[in-house]
């Protein structure tokens, strides 16, 4: 049995529920026969991928849904062999070059050129070009992006690119100037409520509007998360009412607990305890950025207004450090220590 997220994923542009004007635009682009390179960006769970798959279907018909997984081996200049997975249909390819880390340039150069230099064989195909979907384009290295530049221009008769990214900040300007930027905003809470209602009705579940609204709020406008929470609530309770509690994910509960502990006592001994919990989180593969962010936003409501700006400042500072450094726990701990110090000096009414 598939998860609700997959079961009710819209397959065509018509079936998409929110951002109607965007769907309309994608549709007219697909119809025009003059499809540009796209750079689709937006927060996660906003429906970027769903839209792209639907657009591909609009472009090529149902043939794109027959996909297979290829494993290819690439060789770097230093003779290292890279294994790389490609999801492909007859008409399109889907790759995640950031899988191979720093060697993504090799993949981009070799694979895209190979695709670009072969023409569409299938005479009955609706479009003359193939589409290459690049996931996580904002994680591409500078080199890989530089390699895309001329390729995008030179081979545009045979190939179109669709880049998916969370933000355009890490995409170099030359790429941005060569693509059509498509922003997919996160659904609003009422959009999410509507989707939940629809899915619930199709599953034959009793409706609880208050619950739906709470889920929408807790999901932080992330539809995927909202659907997963929705399913979890219904799986855990036979009968749901407006009052049924929405269980937070385990890790979030743990972060909340850490926040409480930090507030309760500001001593090195407590720091040691917190450290064990942070390690626990990290060893369960919770990204350090997420930990830090959640912790910050859990702490903020608990402290005095005068401190909030300062805490955010240090949180942003250590988040940057996490990104630049290699040992995450140092920076998480440093943030906790810094926070304790700020709070203590505020409570004591002096600077130290």
């Amino acid at each position: 049995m598939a998860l609700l997220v997959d079961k009710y994923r819209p397959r065509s542009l018509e079936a998409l529920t929110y951002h109607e004007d965007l769907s309309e635009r994608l549709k007219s682009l697909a119809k025009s026969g003059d499809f540009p390179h796209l750079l689709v960006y937006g927060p996660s769970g906003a429906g970027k991928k769903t839209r792209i798959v639907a657009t591909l279907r609009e472009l090529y018909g149902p043939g794109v849904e027959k996909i297979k997984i290829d494993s290819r081996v690439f060789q770097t200049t230093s003779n290292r062999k890279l294994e790389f997975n490609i999801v492909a249909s007859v008409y399109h390819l889907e790759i995640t070059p950031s899988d191979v880390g720093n060697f993504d340039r090799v993949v981009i150069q070799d694979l895209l050129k190979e695709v670009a230099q072969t023409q569409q064989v299938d005479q009955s195909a609706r479009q003359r070009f193939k589409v290459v979907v690049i996931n996580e384009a904002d994680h591409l290295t500078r080199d890989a992006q530089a390699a895309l530049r001329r390729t995008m221009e030179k081979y545009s008769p045979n190939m179109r690119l669709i880049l998916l990214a969370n933000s355009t900040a890490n995409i170099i300007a030359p790429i941005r100037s060569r693509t059509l930027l498509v922003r997919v905003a996160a659904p609003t809470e009422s959009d999410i409520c509507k989707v939940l209602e629809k899915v619930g009705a199709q599953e034959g579940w009793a409706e609880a509007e208050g619950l739906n609204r709470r889920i929408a709020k807790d999901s932080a406008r992330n539809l995927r998360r909202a659907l997963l929470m929705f399913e979890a609530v219904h799986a855990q309770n036979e009968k749901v009412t407006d009052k049924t509690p929405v269980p937070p994910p385990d890790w979030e509960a743990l972060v909340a607990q850490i926040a409480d502990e930090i507030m309760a006592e500001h001593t090195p001994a407590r720091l040691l305890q917190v450290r064990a919990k942070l390690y626990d989180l990290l060893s369960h593969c919770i990204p350090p950025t997420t930990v830090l962010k959640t912790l910050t936003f859990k702490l903020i409501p608990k402290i005095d207004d005068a401190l909030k700006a300062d805490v955010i400042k240090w949180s942003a500072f250590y988040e940057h450090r996490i990104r630049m450094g290699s040992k995450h726990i140092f920076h998480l701990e440093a943030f906790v220590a810094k926070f304790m110090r700020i709070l203590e000096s505020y409570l004591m009414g002096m600077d130290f």
Partner: protein
Amino acid sequence: MANFFDNKARAAAVAATNGASSSKSAAPKESQNLQPWVEKYRPKSLNDVTAQDHTITVLQRTLQASNLPHMLFYGPPGTGKTSTILALAKELYGPEMFRTRVLELNASDERGISIVREKVKDFARMQLSNPPPHYKDRYPCPPYKIIILDEADSMTQDAQSALRRTMETYSKITRFCLICNYVTRIIDPLASRCSKFRFKMLDQGNAKKRLEDIAENENVKLEDGAVDKLIKCSEGDLRKAITFLQSAARLVGAVKTSHSRSNGNSKKRVLEDEDDEDEDAMEVDGVDESMVTIKNIEEIAGVIPNDVIDGLIQAMQPRSKGAVYEAVAKQVTDLVADGWSATQVVAQLYQNVLYDDALSNKQKNKIVMQFSDVDKRLVDGADEHLTVLDLALQVSGVLAET
């Protein structure tokens, strides 16, 4: 020999032969329709290159002197560096000799030190092939080859130093043209071997003219002021402006099949026969197409609507501390959830805050410090939500100071 390089006479000869070659170009016409306009309207000759008058005059003079130095083109993206050298090469060699006389390498090709040692060196020392008889009447075909190293600033230091001697040894039969955005990334020994050409940002007038020409050629109707908006959004990058224009045109459905007909016959006469062109367009079109509006362009360029930014600035105004945090946090959360890119938020906030005359210089100083810090963090890939929130709160803190 001087006559040999006389471009004007040659251009006339090219024009004369165009009729003959047009039958040949009929085949790829269909694919041309699908081409991005950036490629389609790439300048075909040096004279077409917009706005780089100084560089073009110098280049044309060097052409007439029957010799070409090694060249280094640098300047911001979208100012016509690649276009210039390609146009120059086309004028020199014509379509048939272009393949054998020009080697173009860019960042999409492997360009490590081994490639410089093998491919570039091999090409550089290759003897010149003779042009077919009578070919010289149409194109100058000077006795040297050109190697174009596009995006040379992404070459490694080692690869660049491997070029040094190669450039000198084969200078009799080969000229190099390096193209880069940042001249500082080219090692000194290479830079000193080339004559440098700086490509400046396009000025308003030229860019506007070019965009209007293209719009006219493609039958795209533009709202008043749309072109100015395009130029403003693209920050002097003509390629960006053209891409935006094309996207906007696609978006509103202004490009119909009609352009496929009109572009075939109007390609060569970009500037002349404008009136005639207009009539042509009317005939084909008949009905009024949807217009490209300023709003379309803003949407494509990812520009954040003014009211959103104003909302954020409003929230940042000094009040009692707690209220500021709540208001700012809400605005920032919405901004991030709506998917606006943080770099864009920062850029627009910067414009708005910095041109506020109510602020003292000292405050502005502090604010700029914050902006530079945040920009660096974003480039390093820090979390957008936290970073923008931090920026907004810090700036609001500075605003509260008196």
